[in-house]
């Protein structure tokens, strides 16, 4: 062998060794150094999660009657990734599908486009005309009733010609069904898909398909009602064919929710409110040139006085929650929130805040006595009360001479309270605003639960408004710029300009006028009907202020576990029992001869119902009519508060509504008693072995369920750092 040849053989040897070393080095890099990344990529490649939705818990009234059920519907869905893989990009499939379900193919294509991407025409896709869920999830495009054979025809055509509809599925899915239509709509709430901005919310962790509770108890108890979806982690090959199951959890049905409502009483309450509104609209307002009362909205709250449970609650106008079942159209949503139509979606009973008018006098009486006025004293009731150059009148200029609190409440004499409020205001420091005044009247109002949310288990819970010196000062500091600007901008001498000009310079001042108005529940006092109801419940039950509860208990689907939901005691009135008893006694006179609600309660068993009328003036509008009551007066069990906006005096429009409800509760005026023994059941409905619900007290022969305390899920949650859609791909079966 030549030396040159040997040398080159040596070079070849070195080259071979370096080549092999290179391969081994790179192999080490991939399999050891960077292995974790590739392991994850391999995992993502081949695992698909399939969600098996858990049946959502149904909702029952306190007697075990179904208020919200699940029904199955035939849902036609389109899996976009499969449709797009077609040779023509899916145009043929969508055209055929459009022909079957009667929706233009273009519209189907838009609906299945993921939000935040682009439509076929290149325009960015925007909600609601796009798909908000996972891009790998089939998108529902049409829903048919499963009960109506004519309606299932299109679905059958798709199922029979599967080869013509690749990526299109027709399957049965559970949806909410409301056997009583709009009954208790505001309390129940509805379901809606998870919004994009909620994707990272831990309380919706792992959910990409399910609808979640929006508003009402559906929202408050969403977590328990929802159950736990089953998840199957399927192993798939590159074509998506299933090759095995890695992990599988079975779905756990959601808990049944038992409400404290009585369905019959709720129905009566809603009907009574609707009739009351209709009656109010027939009446004319003689103070304003005889025009008809508008009575656009109203609310009724029926509260169990001694437990703080909601027996019935109605807001007018209402809506049928089933319109949310198949997805709400933009037009329907506009109608639901249109103020001109009374904003039916808005729960007036818990969200609406109104001046409580004379119903507030239970607070003023308690406050006056707490401030030093004698409970058994006599007070002047002239037709007008003067403060400086302002004069405050009695309703329709009445005058009753010198009277006690009883008469002042029965006749609803305002001037007595004007003077008491004014005297207390002087005593508390007048216009001096140091922020440390005694504030006896506002303090009493807060003790009765005004000015802060009621704590009810519903997401819509307004705090209302209680004004005092400190509030005025804080508010003025925050708002004076706006007031002063308004004073300059508005036409000189106009009502609002005068108000703004005054607020600009003296807005911090808690004036005598403020205190005088406060004493009769006018001016800067706003309350929800529910707040007023629980204040009256506190009066009726001897001083316990409850955070009311609509829900009574959660029952596990198998009946082995029960989670009672007790009303929360929020506070105790420090008003002496003597004062409360005096006020309760005085209010029995309101429904009797000489009382402000006597006409509406004519012929009713005397002394059964105690109550207080209220007629609150609203600037530029017809007055708000109130009636806040409890019964039986001697041993109160129920509080009923009725409120109608722009409807006239409480005694004439609100009191008849409450009477109709008492008729139903107690079986009077020829009505059938709705509640057995006149009381709501104290025991819970029971779960039968087959999972259905039996009325309270039924014998199922099953062991008593385990009692588990209620742990509410946090409603607000910190934003996650994860970007949207950065979660495992999922598909549904």
């Amino acid at each position, binding site marked *: 062998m030549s030396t040159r040849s040997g040398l080159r053989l040596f070079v070849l040897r070195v080259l071979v060794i370096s080549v092999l070393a290179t391969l081994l080095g790179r192999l080490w890099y991939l399999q050891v150094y960077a292995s974790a990344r590739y392991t994850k990529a391999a995992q993502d490649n081949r695992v698909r999660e399939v969600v098996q939705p858990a049946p959502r818990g149904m909702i029952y009234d306190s007697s075990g009657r179904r208020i919200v059920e699940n029904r199955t519907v035939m849902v036609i869905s389109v899996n976009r990734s499969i449709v797009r893989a077609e040779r023509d990009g899916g145009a043929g499939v969508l055209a055929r599908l459009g022909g079957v379900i009667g929706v233009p193919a273009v519209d189907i294509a838009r609906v299945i486009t993921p939000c935040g991407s682009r439509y076929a025409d290149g325009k960015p896709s925007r909600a609601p005309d796009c798909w908000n869920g996972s891009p790998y999830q089939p998108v529902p495009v049409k829903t048919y009733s499963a009960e109506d054979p004519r309606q299932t025809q299109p679905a059958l055509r798709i199922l029979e010609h599967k080869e013509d509809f690749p990526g299109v599925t027709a399957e049965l899915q559970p949806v909410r069904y409301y056997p009583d239509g709009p009954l208790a709509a505001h309390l129940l709430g509805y379901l809606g898909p998870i919004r994009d901005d909620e994707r990272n919310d831990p309380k919706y962790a792992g959910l990409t398909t399910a609808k979640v509770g929006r508003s009402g108890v559906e929202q408050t108890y969403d977590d328990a009602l929802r159950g736990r979806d089953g998840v199957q982690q399927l192993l798939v090959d*590159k074509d998506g064919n299933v090759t095995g199951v890695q992990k599988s959890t079975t779905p756990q049905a959601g808990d049944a929710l038992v409400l404290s409502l009585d369905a019959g009483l709720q129905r009566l309450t809603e009907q009574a409110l609707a009739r009351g509104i209709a009656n109010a609209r027939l009446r004319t307002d003689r103070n304003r040139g005889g025009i008809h009362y508008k009575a656009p909205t109203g609310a009724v709250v029926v509260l169990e006085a001694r437990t703080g449970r909601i027996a019935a609650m109605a807001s007018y106008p209402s809506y049928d929650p089933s319109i949310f079942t198949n997805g709400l159209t933009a037009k329907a949503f506009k109608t639901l929130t249109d103020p001109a139509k009374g904003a039916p979606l808005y729960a007036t009973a818990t969200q609406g805040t109104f001046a409580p008018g004379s119903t507030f006098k239970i607070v003023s009486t308690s406050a006056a006595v707490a401030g030093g006025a004698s409970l058994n004293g006599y007070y002047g009731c002239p037709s007008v009360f003067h403060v400086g150059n302002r004069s405050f009148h009695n309703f329709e200029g009445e005058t009753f001479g010198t009277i006690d609190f009883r008469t002042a409440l029965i006749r609803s004499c305002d001037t007595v309270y004007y003077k008491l409020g004014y005297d207390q205001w002087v005593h508390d420091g007048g216009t001096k605003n140091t922020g440390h005044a005694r504030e006896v009247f506002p303090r009493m109002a807060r003790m009765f639960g005004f000015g802060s949310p009621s704590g009810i288990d519903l997401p819509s819970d307004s705090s209302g408004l209680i004004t005092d010196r400190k509030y005025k000062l804080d508010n003025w500091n925050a708002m004076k710029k706006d007031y002063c600007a308004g004073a300059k901008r508005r036409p000189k001498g106009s009502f609002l300009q005068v108000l703004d000009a005054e607020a600009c310079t003296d807005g911090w001042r808690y004036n005598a006028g403020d205190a005088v108005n406060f004493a009769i529940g006018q001016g800067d006092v706003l309350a929800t009907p529910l707040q007023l109801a629980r204040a009256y419940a506190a009066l009726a039950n001897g001083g316990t202020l409850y955070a009311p509860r609509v829900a009574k208990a959660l029952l596990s689907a198998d009946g082995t576990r029960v989670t009672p939901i007790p009303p929360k005691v929020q506070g105790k009135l420090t008003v002496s029992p003597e004062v409360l008893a005096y006020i309760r006694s005085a209010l029995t006179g309101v429904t009797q001869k000489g009382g402000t609600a006597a006409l509406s309660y004519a012929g009713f068993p005397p002394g059964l119902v105690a109550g207080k009328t209220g007629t609150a003036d609203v600037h530029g509008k017809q007055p708000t009519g109130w009636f806040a009551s409890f019964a039986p007066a001697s041993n109160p069990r129920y509080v009923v508060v009725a409120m109608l906006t722009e409807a006239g005096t409480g005694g004439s429009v609100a009191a008849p509504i409450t009477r109709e409800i008492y008729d139903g509760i107690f079986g009077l005026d020829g009505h059938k008693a709705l509640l057995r023994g006149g009381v709501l059941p104290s025991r819970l409905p029971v779960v039968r072995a087959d999972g259905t619900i039996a009325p309270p007290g039924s014998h199922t022969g099953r062991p008593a369920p385990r009692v588990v305390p209620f742990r509410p899920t946090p409603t607000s949650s910190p934003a996650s750092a994860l970007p949207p859609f950065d979660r495992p791909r999922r598909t549904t079966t």
Partner: protein
Amino acid sequence: MTEWELTPRTVPKSVAHRRREASLRQRALDRESPLRRIDWLLVLGVTGLITIGSLLVWSATRARMESAGLDPQAFLKKHIINAVIGVGLASVAALIDYRSLRAYAPIVYVASCLGLLAVLSPLGSTINGAHSWIVLPAGFQVQPSEFAKVAIVVGLAMLLSETRDGEDTPRDIDVLLALSFCALPMGLIMLQPDLGTTVVIVFIILGVLAVSGAPSRWVIGLLAAGVVAGAVVAPHILSTYQKDRFAAFANPAVDPRGVGYNTRQARTAIGSGGLTGKGLFHGTQTQGRFIPEQQTDFVFTVAGEELGLVGAGAIILLLGLVLWRGLHIASLALDPFGRLVAAGVVCWFAFQSFVNIGMTLGIMPVTGLPLPFLSYGGSAMFANLIAVGLLQNVHMRNSEL
């Protein structure tokens, strides 16, 4: 399955006649017996590679065949049959004295060129995007370019080892002759077009030329010409598909679902295998069929995923063993012809292994070259084993004097 068990039965008649009087046992143990002169380490390396390769081909195909309702062992069986036939061919190649191969070389050369011409004729057909096949009756396919490598190794060795007038290194005229000898089959292969095989042949030429002791200007000149051709000419003659492959190699993120998809899936398979792998038949990438052509060009990914660094590293080391023995045989060869044949085979195996494994590891572009002894495919298996037979041939006769 060791190839040499079969040797006695496949010994050509002429050899058998010579030793008619001796018993089979005596013959096998005879000092002069070829069996005693076999390079057993080379046998061990090749046997190991073929055994692992069979398992990998099986693992890569069984799930797919089963889901298609076909025999899940069909590929395994055909692969083993290919190996057995290949061992038979290797035995023939080993037992004919390589010095008499010179007489057969022109026949092999002409046959290869005819085969390559046939591919370009209507007899040729396209399989998996490569127009490199002749489809024979009864479902057989032949890839003449694989055999052309054997012809070129033998032909080059012959042309460059002819010593004239006592010179032990080829002259310019020999080099020119050798290059023109290679030009025809290379041209035919480029017309298919099969870029990968062409480049393998270029490296065989370079290696054989270098080891032959040809003047350095030829070696360096050829290397330079290759680089220039690669940089300047290639972009013009490469098809769009080939250019895409290079673009995807340079930047795999260009099109994750398109050209770069294969290499990304291949790297995912290997990387996710980790140190010890997911176990044979348990690779999720492999069993989920995420890698196309896995039993042929991407067979190494099966090892990377299912056998891990241990198994894939063992393959590289076994290939190293084969190359080491090849180089050893080249250095011990008694004459230039034997040395050049061994060097040519080493260059062939080394370059093809590097390009194939480098492709699956993402450090080389996708070229469609099979991995010697491991990839499924009869023609390649036959050609590789014939080359091993040639190595054994040289080894058996390096100490016969």
